[in-house]
């Protein structure tokens, strides 16, 4: 078993940033260290120095690495109670607008995005909603846009969907096409999404404002510094009375503008930007 040290990781991520303009330098260290350790053992690479040499001229390996470091959010309708609350408390407010702008930043392989599409569809809101999904990496955009799914994930999604609907007979497979063993999330729904390659910290220059920002279980992969930096940017782009959602076990306690946000539910981490 090949092991990787924090020092190795720092050197590696510095090199990636300096030579390939790929920035993982401010990601949560313990998780990053483990994922890199798993990666070099899986692909039989001696150490991170070797990995860096290889990814410089092996695009396929680099893509695999980025995919591996972009952790998924596990399943559609993760935390069914959260989605029920969103559907009950947030969606009706959004429905009042003529146009709804939603941002889903830092997508990986995106169950959160697909969940949002299903909820908007079921509320007949897709036509007047603009959804922007972003990632610093093409790999994640291509993957999310493809809608490629698995039987196992579909089964998990269905289990959660039944809990969301509070109905044993609910079935999410209507949103998928299944041909033999290939499972595909609705292309029709995915087409409502605009995907953009952007690193929010560097080049998100428009003055776009969003009514809802879906940002659950993304901050856990950033260190505190990067987390706060991104939150500031997101906060700036949140419309007045816009909603920001974060993961069940994430918090904004270190966020300087916390007092300008109000949690709208005592269970779920859904915040509204005060007027």
């Amino acid at each position: 078993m090949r092991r990787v040290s924090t020092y190795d990781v720092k050197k590696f991520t510095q090199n990636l940033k300096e030579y390939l303009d790929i920035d993982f330098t401010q990601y949560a260290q313990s998780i990053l260290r483990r994922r890199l350790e798993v990666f070099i053992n899986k692909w039989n690479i001696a150490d991170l120095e070797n990995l860096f040499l290889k990814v410089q001229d092996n695009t396929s390996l680099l893509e695999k690495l980025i995919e591996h470091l972009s952790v998924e959010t596990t399943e559609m309708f993760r935390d069914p109670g959260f989605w029920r609350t969103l559907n009950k408390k947030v969606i009706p407010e959004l429905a009042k607008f003529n146009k709804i702008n939603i941002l889903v930043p830092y997508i990986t392989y995106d169950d959160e995005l697909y969940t949002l599409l299903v909820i908007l569809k079921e509320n007949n809101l897709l036509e007047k909603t603009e959804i922007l999904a972003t990632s610093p990496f093409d790999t994640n955009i291509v993957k999310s846009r493809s809608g490629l799914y698995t039987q196992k994930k579909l089964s998990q999604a269905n289990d959660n969907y039944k809990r969301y609907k509070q109905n044993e007979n609910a079935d999410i497979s209507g949103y998928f096409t299944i041909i033999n063993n290939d499972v595909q999330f609705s292309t029709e729904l995915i087409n409502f999404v605009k995907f953009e390659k952007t690193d929010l910290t560097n080049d998100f220059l428009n003055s776009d404002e969003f009514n809802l920002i879906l940002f659950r279980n993304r901050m856990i992969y950033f260190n505190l510094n990067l987390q706060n930096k991104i939150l500031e940017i997101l906060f700036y782009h949140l419309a007045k009375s816009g909603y920001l959602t974060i993961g069940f076990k994430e918090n904004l306690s270190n966020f300087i503008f916390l007092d300008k946000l109000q949690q709208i539910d005592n269970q779920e981490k859904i915040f509204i930007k005060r007027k």
Partner: protein
Amino acid sequence: MASKYIIIGGSAGSFQTVLQILNNLPKDFIHPIFLCMHRLKHVRGGFVEALSIKSKLKVIEPEDKSPIFGKKVYLAPANYHMYLEVSNTIALSTEEAVNHSRPSIDITFASAAYAFQEKVVAILLSGANKDGAAGLKEVQYYGGTVIVQDPKEASVPVMPEAALKEVQKPDFIFNTEQIIDYLNSINY
């Protein structure tokens, strides 16, 4: 920075053992204790409450980036992996299940082992799969103390047995009484 980090991993059949351990440690047990228990994904509340009935120490489910303090028991939240960071904080993750589990004992043990090395005391209890075995190996590699619950006492011996295959020379193979005595003996 604590002088020791006590990590307890358990699955099927370990709940009563954990209750007994927590009930027999003083309320000012000085080292932070981390519990990684396999648990139902959708059940958010109730676990902390159930443990708190018998535990003299305060049991909490940490949030991401929570700082680590002594005299506390940190229970890995449902559907997240729990890491210990070198910076003496907790990191949560939504990575793939390991040994079909999230939270995975392997992940918590291994991250603690790397971060705190010889300060780690890792205890693996009853369970039905082999989660924790590879993690214990990391604890041993980095110089921590490896304790496996005696398979003869464990309700479901599969997990301790898998661990003993992986870590042929653990520091101790203990029953519950011995685990309690050991922890009380290092309370300084």
